[in-house]
């Protein structure tokens, strides 16, 4: 179907397949996420597989690292910074602050023209065959720069037809651009929606630029809200998959996001990504300067869990830079600066890319089987609570495996494990502990702080010193499952943990809260 879309002449016969998708989306939203809803179900879009959604939808998301939690272990994305202008002001954004050592939305080292962007995409695609997704995510608003955004998309649509195109927007200019979005086969659109009540919005958005006027206060948020809802409805009608990004701002929209979740679900949003506010005084943002804090790991998880019933919730977002390149959680943008791609020989080999992607497909099948086997091995144990759930941290370099040395990890993936499930619930970024073979002792406490809510950390290898310190902090270091698939490793460790409780060897104890994000650094 993908091919049918590409073969169609521009502007022609695209409506037909899209209409087909629309029907599926309608069916899907009404029943939550495809099949069964309810507590404990793997949230679709985040970790659902082919069994949980219609084939057409699965086809659209299976190789998209942002739309499928599973895919993010295998496929890479890139952003091109062609859209610097913005039409609104947010209190968590400061356009004057830009640091190449930092990784967070809105930050970018090099702005590109559409022509430069296309060249960069082709260079990356020929180097990294698992790069399947191209997004325009600012550093401003993609739709406040319609010429630059759509020029880029048009050229890519023609030269690299297998790459999925996405844009990210605040939604203010969305309704008037929906037709243009459909024209270039952009089938994933992310809208940042932080409120559905303009009174709440007034605390987040100081002004918008609208119809040649700067509008402030509640009125600004009322217009923004109306445009966002209208744009979302229009995209759903046309079968474009939508992801809603919401920034959790404690004290301003934390509980309100549950209402946002309800409203966007009602209008057919495919995925909801609730992410923590990033706020430091040195960023010079309004929130940074007023001391507005970001949420703790537990606060974030509480809101995410409250939005989970029947929702498609994304928990693997890395809040990456507007010019990031690579797998989520890594950034290879340094390898593809303008002067470097100038010297590169660019060969866009569609066959090579397909072959690689088939290999990944086979890997995913074995990963799924390993999980099924591990679940089958879970035992019913007397005197162990069958509903017990714990968090484990995992060090991974990708491919869905426990394959990273503790000291090399710049982030840990967090899985919530029960007898019946290993569910990806998030990630924690940490400073690199080990550089060139010896550990920096002073960084270890910050790692412990970041995974303090976990009972165990699964790694490929770990040195004696950090091992002892983790144990002292009550976190079990585990290297027995090195190079196994993550879910299988987590489930097997949990089975063993429960057995030790049953034997009276250890006692189960609850863990505390953890910090989400440690400082600012480049990795990811």
């Amino acid at each position, binding site marked *: 179907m993908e091919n049918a879309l590409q073969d169609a002449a521009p502007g022609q016969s695209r409506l037909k397949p899209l209409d087909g998708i629309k029907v599926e989306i309608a069916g899907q939203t009404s029943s939550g996420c495809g099949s069964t809803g309810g507590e404990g179900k793997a949230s679709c879009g985040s970790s659902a597989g082919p069994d949980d959604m219609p084939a057409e939808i699965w086809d659209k998301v299976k190789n998209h690292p942002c739309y499928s939690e599973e895919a993010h272990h295998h496929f890479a994305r890139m952003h091109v910074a062609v859209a610097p*202008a913005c*039409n609104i*002001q947010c209190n968590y954004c400061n*356009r*004057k602050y830009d640091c190449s050592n930092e990784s967070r939305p809105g930050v970018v080292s090099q*702005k590109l023209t559409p022509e430069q962007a296309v060249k960069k995409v082709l260079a990356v695609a020929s180097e990294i065959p698992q790069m399947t997704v191209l997004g325009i995510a600012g*550093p401003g608003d993609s739709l406040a720069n319609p010429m630059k955004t759509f020029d880029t998309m048009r050229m890519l649509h023609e030269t690299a037809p297998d790459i999925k195109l996405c844009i990210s927007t605040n939604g203010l200019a969305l309704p008037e651009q929906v037709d243009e979005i459909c024209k270039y086969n952009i089938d994933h659109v992310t809208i940042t929606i932080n409120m559905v009540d303009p009174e709440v919005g007034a605390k987040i958005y100081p002004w918008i630029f609208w119809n040649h006027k700067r509008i402030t206060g509640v009125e600004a948020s009322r217009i923004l809200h109306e445009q966002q809802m209208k744009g979302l409805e229009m995209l759903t009608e046309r079968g474009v998959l939508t992801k809603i990004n919401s920034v959790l701002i404690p004290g301003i929209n934390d509980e309100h996001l549950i209402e946002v979740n309800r409203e966007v679900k009602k209008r057919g949003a495919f995925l909801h990504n609730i992410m923590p506010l990033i706020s430091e005084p040195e960023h010079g943002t309004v929130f940074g300067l007023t001391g507005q804090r970001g949420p703790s790991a537990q606060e974030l998880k509480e809101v995410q869990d409250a939005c989970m019933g029947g929702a498609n919730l994304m928990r693997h977002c890395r809040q990456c830079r507007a010019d990031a390149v690579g797998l989520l959680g890594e950034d290879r943008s340094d390898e593809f600066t303008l002067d470097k791609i100038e010297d590169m020989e660019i060969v866009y080999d569609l066959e090579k890319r397909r072959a690689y992607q088939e290999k990944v497909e086979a890997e995913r099948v074995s990963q799924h089987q390993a999980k099924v086997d591990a679940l089958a091995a879970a035992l019913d144990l007397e005197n162990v609570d069958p509903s017990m759930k714990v968090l484990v941290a995992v060090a991974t370099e990708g491919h869905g495996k426990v394959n990273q040395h503790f000291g090399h990890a710049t982030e840990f993936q967090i899985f919530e494990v029960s007898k019946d499930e290993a569910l990806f619930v998030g990630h924690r970024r940490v400073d690199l502990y080990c550089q060139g073979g010896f550990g920096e002792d002073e960084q270890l406490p910050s790692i412990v702080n970041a995974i303090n809510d976990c009972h165990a950390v699964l790694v490929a290898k770990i040195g004696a010193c950090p091992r002892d310190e983790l144990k002292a902090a009550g976190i079990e270091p585990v290297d027995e499952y090195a190079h196994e698939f993550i879910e299988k490793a987590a489930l097997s460790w949990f089975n063993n943990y429960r057995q030790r409780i049953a034997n009276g060897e250890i006692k189960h104890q609850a863990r505390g809260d953890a910090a989400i994000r440690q400082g600012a650094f480049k990795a990811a």
Partner: protein
Amino acid sequence: MAYKIVGSQCTGCSACEPECPNQAIYEKNGVFFIKPEKCTECIGHFDEAQCVAACPVDNTCIIDTAYPRYEA
């Protein structure tokens, strides 16, 4: 008078450029400038100066007193 852009403040985001009704704004080395002879302070076009309203950094598009007030 005409408006001018404070170079040290300009982030080069380009938000002002397409909003100018007189095509008075141009880019050089990553930051934007206003040609004073083309600037009409948006008088006769809009209620407020478009560069000022669109600019994300306060006090970056300001009146340049070196030029006489524009008369429509």
